[in-house]
């Protein structure tokens, strides 16, 4: 703090390097480096595990550069290099320790394999120097990136993330596009042949250049294109928009045919999460009621369909209903549960609401698991033999047909939430979120408004649960753990609380990606947790924020500069 301009701040550089190093050590020791090393981004050259470490080094360097008093210029770059080198030194200390002592009794991931990865398979003394050298080089890159003008930096960042994305998803891209004759040659060149997984080196470079250049071009020309669009007469603008919808519709219809069985399955589970997300978005995002027991309604929906349609005869009751008959009953029961569980928490706010709803969720799960209710809902063995539904003579028993059921549900939910958002009720919800007391003073009926929020949210969740029941054909109490609620919560927070497109963004990121990258599965909740903490500090409004909510969350910052002036 006492340092004046242009002098080099050793303390901050050291501090940042050490923090970066500790983050790196944590990433390595929880096993992410080792686990992710199996998947390559650039075939044979760069694995995902290494990417994670490089990214940490890069960010360390970038921050070190931005910390310097006159960030742009030599001190910044030197600081970046030094900080990243310190990061690498910390990592090499870790590699040395792991190599020297057997720590696996305590730290399960401190394996020889980790040392091998960290030292570029060169063994301890030699590899460590390479590691430190690599760290410094990446730091240099971080420093240089910091110096670049904003426009170019964004393009570079986007290009690099696109390379990473394509590299990660290569398997899926190849599988889904393999059917098309002409494309397969290009794919082969881009992704390399045979068993290697990831982009080829040339492919990576091409992707990077195309995306970065495209982004630069778009950024310079976007205002013009927009102006052009706005200049068009009303009528042709509308028809252009309808054309867009039409294309979207066709894509939705033909998606399962293109994607194949496995990917459709992924889309389906993502869809169920999005359906739940749309419901929780109403409760948490619109009305501001933090509900951690949301999974309860999911369970109620699934169990209702299970009990009503099941034909195995192990349970006391034997309904043997048709799915389409059971579905409305399941949704109504979920709504009823939403109201019944909503009444006790009407007077609670914030923290208390969260804990009590969490308690409700657990109560439902424990009841489903208990011997007490075993005769009626199967106890820990769950309900098996839930028959697949039929629709107009088509048996919905594979992912590709079920897909349409889920899409129909999602579109219905989307339509309802969109209409509700702009309705009188939606505005009441938002008033409730901003300030309960003021809302009441404005004549909003708190009881009805809150209960309607719970009920609508529960309906979507119940619908999602009912579909889950036929999707799996069996339901177990373990499918309804608290983690589902947390998943859905993370999804709408990352997307942006109260934002409907945000639910889709969050769903694709947090439900779709982990399904595709199975390595992630183990670290799903670790990453979600970190994501929630970071999001709340950096971007509490989410990736696709809703305008009013964003304004509300940044109120304090908007006020601060004004205060500083005064």
């Amino acid at each position, binding site marked *: 703090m006492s340092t004046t301009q242009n002098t080099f701040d050793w303390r901050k550089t050291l501090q940042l390097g050490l923090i970066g190093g500790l983050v790196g050590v944590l990433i390595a020791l929880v096993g992410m480096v080792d686990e992710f090393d199996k998947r390559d981004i650039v075939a044979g050259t760069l694995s995902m595990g290494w990417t994670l470490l490089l990214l940490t080094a890069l960010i360390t360097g970038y921050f070190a550069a931005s910390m310097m008093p006159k960030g742009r210029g030599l001190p910044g770059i030197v600081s970046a290099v030094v900080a990243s080198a310190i990061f690498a030194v910390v990592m090499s200390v870790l590699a040395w320790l792991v190599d020297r002592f057997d720590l696996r009794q305590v730290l399960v991931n401190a394996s020889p394999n980790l040392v091998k990865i960290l030292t570029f398979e060169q063994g301890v003394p030699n590899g460590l120097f390479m590691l430190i050298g690599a760290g410094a080089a990446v730091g240099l890159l971080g420093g240089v990136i910091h110096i670049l003008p904003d426009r170019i930096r964004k393009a570079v960042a986007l290009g690099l993330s696109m390379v990473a994305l394509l590299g990660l998803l290569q398997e899926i891209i190849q599988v889904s596009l393999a059917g098309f004759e002409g494309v397969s040659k290009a794919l082969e060149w881009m992704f390399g042949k045979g068993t290697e997984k990831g982009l080829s080196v040339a492919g990576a470079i091409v992707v990077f250049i195309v995306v970065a250049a495209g982004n630069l071009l778009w950024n310079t020309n976007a205002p013009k294109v927009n102006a052009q669009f706005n200049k068009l007469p009303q009528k042709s603008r509308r028809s252009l928009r309808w054309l867009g919808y039409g294309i979207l519709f066709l894509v939705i219809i033909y998606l399962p045919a293109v994607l194949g069985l496995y990917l459709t399955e992924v889309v389906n589970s993502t869809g169920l999460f999005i359906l739940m997300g749309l419901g929780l978005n109403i409760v948490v995002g619109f009305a501001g009621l933090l509900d951690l027991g949301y999974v309860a309604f999911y369970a109620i929906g699934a169990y209702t369909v299970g009990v009503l349609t099941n034909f195995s005869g192990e349970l006391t009751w034997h309904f043997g209903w048709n799915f389409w008959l059971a579905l409305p009953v399941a949704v109504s029961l979920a709504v009823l549960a939403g109201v019944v569980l909503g*009444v006790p928490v009407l007077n609670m706010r914030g*923290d208390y609401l969260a804990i009590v709803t969490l308690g409700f969720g657990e*109560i439902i799960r424990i009841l489903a698991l*208990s011997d007490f209710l075993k005769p009626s809902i199967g106890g820990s063995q769950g309900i098996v033999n839930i028959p697949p539904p039929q629709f107009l003579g088509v048996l919905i028993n594979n992912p590709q047909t079920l897909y349409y059921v889920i899409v129909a549900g999602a579109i219905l939910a989307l339509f309802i939430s969109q209409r509700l958002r702009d309705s009188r009720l939606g505005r009441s919800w938002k008033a409730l979120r901003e300030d309960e007391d003021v809302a009441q003073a404005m004549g909003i009926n708190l*009881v009805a408004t809150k209960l309607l929020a719970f009920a609508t949210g529960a309906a979507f969740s119940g619908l999602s649960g009912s579909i889950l029941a036929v999707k799996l054909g069996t339901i177990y109490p373990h499918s309804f753990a608290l983690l589902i609620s947390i998943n859905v919560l993370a999804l709408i*927070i990352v997307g942006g609380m109260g934002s409907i497109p945000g639910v889709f963004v969050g769903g694709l990121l947090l439900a779709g990606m982990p399904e595709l990258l199975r390595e992630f599965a183990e670290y799903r909740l670790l990453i979600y*947790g970190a994501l929630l903490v970071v999001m709340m500090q950096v971007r509490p409004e989410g990736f696709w924020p809703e305008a009013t909510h964003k304004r509300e*969350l940044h109120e304090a910052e908007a006020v601060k500069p004004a205060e500083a002036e005064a």
Partner: protein
Amino acid sequence: MQSYRIRRINWTDLFMWVVGAALLALIVGGTYLTLQQGKFTAVQWFDLAVFGLAQGSVYALIALGYTLVYGILRMINFAHSEIFMSGAFIGYFAATGMQRAGFMQENPLLGIIIIFLTAMTTSAVLAILLERIAYRPLRGAPRLVPLITAIGASFFLQYTFRGLFGTQNRAYPEIDVIKGTVPLFGDFQIQKIQIIVIAAAAMMMAFLVLFVQYTKTGKAMRAVSEDKSVAALMGIDVDAIIVRTFILGASLAGAAGVLYCFMFRIVTFYMGFIPGIKAFTAAVLGGIGNPAGAMLGGLFLGIFESLGPTLFLDGLGVPAPYQLKDVIAFTMLVMVLIFRPTGILGERLSRAKA
């Protein structure tokens, strides 16, 4: 709000009263039937009660952490359960290490003290980091923001421990001195470990009360929980006091972790969740923000939960009632929040300040 409730009884209140009355009838009826059937002997009831008391002492220690932090920051530190777990975990490594080296057999008392110190230090360090990294930047943010952060931090810590130390259940080493039972009169006896847990918890709670009442830090803590800005004007370093509060709560949680492991002898990464929720229930039950209430609430919940399932449900013919003990605890939490949100000893917080 207040007058609204007094002026007329609306249907939601009526609904809750009906539910409450039904539950009360269930409890009374169940108890009567169970006692009438006389399936259980006095010794069995006594064992259950003592077990409940020991478990309740652990809840009370954890609950103190929730209450202390809530008193000062008005936020539920969701990640407190993971701080409890971390203490238990690192304490486990200390215990196995010493056991293997033979130290534990030679100096059992010193060994136990070392386990406690390791666990408490770990928890305290983790709490300091948590406060510094996750909570401090969010002072003054909308209420939902720190709460979501706390939930995120809780899962992050839980799964970091899973990643670091693996998914398997680790069995706590047996420490010879604390095994066995102490005979009382007749057939009645108490396990040694339960005596130790109850005594240790009582000692720590006494220490806490003295600390908060009579030390300078304790006074400053009370001042900060009254009013942060006025406390700052009086020359109190508010941030430092908040950190100390976290350290105090976390040390108690770490110690609770060791005691919990002494009793149940198993360590896993998700072991914090249920005791954490229970402890929170205990804190609410006693009146959150009030340390004495947290202790009382913890003991009450422990006994209630231990005796409850058998006492209330067995007579009603519910199979395997112990499976439903968490249901009983959560139901009690909800009922307390509805009918007496102040808890046994607390002020009216859940509505007024929440």
